[in-house]
């Protein structure tokens, strides 16, 4: 058999362009449906896994899909905010425990998520180094954020300005990194977590500045009427929360009206979940309570319908390509009739000559299968990243 393979490989390597075209075509015939299937299965697992551990989501009325994708993956369009009072309402119902999320801001391309410590327990996130959130102006970063930005505990991150031309807008906040999370292989790896109140400071709802009641700041006061002091533009506003100025940070307005993007709602049991969902069915409700799991199933049903059409189309194209490949082999045999005839005349055995020709086909097929297998492995390895970049961004 060694001689057979030798002649087959000599033929294939001499006609390397023809071989490469054949191998590429057959590789694609095999890889496209298989790779698509792998990608589809991974996207199913990716989308479902996170939705599974998020029983319910509360958010402003609007696109439930947008709310779900933003709350689970922090990547899609930020939904309209809802009042913090809605979270308090769920909490006071006694039926579920809400975990607020405020995802409006970003920092160097990564989302800043304002939440509470319950989120870390809910998602089973563990610290790799440092400590968890304790004070205003602190943040804990996911593994990928730390890895890609080269950040360690003690470093600082500055939130991105929303609009550099808006002089009255919220100024970036310099946050101190107090912890780095262990890798979780979830979207949480790409998040900068901070306390909900810190995100409100970024939003400009809370701020810290020089104490205007102090006589030393009289030069910054424009007008003083009883307890009301109007400062002029020289008043120093802090863009970083430090031990020295933390006491000066305060919020204006009713916290019940403060914005949050969503809340993860953890019902006590199935009955509580049903009761709670019933309460938010009214058209008059300004908020919606959605089940990410059901939503993802609906989304996946649509995706997989499209996918099955796509695979069917790929299979048809694949069959056509396969037919072309067979035609190429047959034409090649025709063109090689003289060569085969020479081998027969010299005395080549029928079995050997057939084996040589079959080996060439087998070698092309094996090479194609190996390449398709390799591509499938690469797809399965980078599938999650591909899905995130294709579906969620």
């Amino acid at each position: 058999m060694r001689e057979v393979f030798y002649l087959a490989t000599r033929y294939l390597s001499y006609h390397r362009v023809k071989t490469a075209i054949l191998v590429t075509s057959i590789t694609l015939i095999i890889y496209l449906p298989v790779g698509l299937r792998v990608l589809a299965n991974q996207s199913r697992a990716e989308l479902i896994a996170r939705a599974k551990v998020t029983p319910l989501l509360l958010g402003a009325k609007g696109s439930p899909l947008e709310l779900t994708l933003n709350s689970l993956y922090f990547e899609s369009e930020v939904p309209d905010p809802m009042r913090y009072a809605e979270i308090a309402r769920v909490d006071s119902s006694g039926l579920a425990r809400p975990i607020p999320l405020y995802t409006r801001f970003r920092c160097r391309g990564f989302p800043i998520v304002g939440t509470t410590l319950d989120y870390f327990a809910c998602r089973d996130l563990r610290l790799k180094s440092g400590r968890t959130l304790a004070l205003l102006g602190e943040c804990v970063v996911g593994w990928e954020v730390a890895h890609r930005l080269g950040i360690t505990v003690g470093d600082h991150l500055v939130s991105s300005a929303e609009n550099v031309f808006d002089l009255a807008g919220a100024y970036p906040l310099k946050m101190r990194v107090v912890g780095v999370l262990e890798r979780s292989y979830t979207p949480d790896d790409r998040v900068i977590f901070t306390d909900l109140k810190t995100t409100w400071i970024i939003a400009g709802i809370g701020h810290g500045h020089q104490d205007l009641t102090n006589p030393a700041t009289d030069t910054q006061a424009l007008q003083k009427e009883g307890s009301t002091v109007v400062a002029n533009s020289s008043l120093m506003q802090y863009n970083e929360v430090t031990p020295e100025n933390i006491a000066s940070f305060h919020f204006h307005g009713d916290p019940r009206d403060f914005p949050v993007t969503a809340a993860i709602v953890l019902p006590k049991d199935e009955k509580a979940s049903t009761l709670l969902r019933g309460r938010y069915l009214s058209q008059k409700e300004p908020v919606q309570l959605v089940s990410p799991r059901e939503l993802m199933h609906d989304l996946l049903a649509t995706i997989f319908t499209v996918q099955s059409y796509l695979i069917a189309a790929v299979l048809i194209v694949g069959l056509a390509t396969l037919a072309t490949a067979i035609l190429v082999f047959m034409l090649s045999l025709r063109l090689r009739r003289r060569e085969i005839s020479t081998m027969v005349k010299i005395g080549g055995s029928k079995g050997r000559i057939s084996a040589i020709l079959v080996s060439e086909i087998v070698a092309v097929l094996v090479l194609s299968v190996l390449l398709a297998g390799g591509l499938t492995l690469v797809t399965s390895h980078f599938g999650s990243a591909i899905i995130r970049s294709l579906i969620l961004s």
Partner: protein
Amino acid sequence: MISLNELEFHYPDGEFSLRIPDLKFETGESVAVIGPSGTGKTTFLNLIGGIVSASAGKVMHDGTDLRSLSDPERRAFRIRKIGLVFQEFELLEYLTVLDNILLPYRIHPALRMTPALKARAVELAAEVGISHDLGRYVDQLSQGERQRVAICRALLPRPSLILADEPTGNLDPRNKGKVLDILFSYVEREGATLLTVTHDHDLLARFARVVDFSRFHAETSEQLSPPDGAR
């Protein structure tokens, strides 16, 4: 000794048939086969080589009747005992010179590739003056060099019969002489029989015998004597 007895061959189209009642070739004999195109010279070589089967009669090689052998047996016989040389060389473009010479050992299990054999192929190539071309592809060679490669391929299994179908047909006079020198040298050294179809009457003087096919297909059984002046 090779003998043909009451040999008949009918072409599938039925328009032409070849009849050779009696013809013998002694071991070590060099024979030129001549005749106009279309008289069955190539068919004659194919019959002797067992490439095609006669409709009737016998083709005996040292007591072995080729017609009594099955197709696989005939192939095995041919690859071991008969060396074929063609006018168009019939080399494989995707093989190097050395691989072309070794080809018979790769296409039939009856012949086994050994390191000694490779050494002999190199030796043979050196003998015919193509040792520096062993790693080249055949399309990089001249016509004369290609025919020498084809001859090496034919001679490597040490055949007792060489069937050459117009081996000098595509060569210039200098290469014609060289090619015949190689073939005659082998015949002399190994005591092999050489049957060569040729249209080149200038070369006939080098052959021990000449068989003229111009009258063969017309149902004659005449074994022709050498023409005047031929040895």
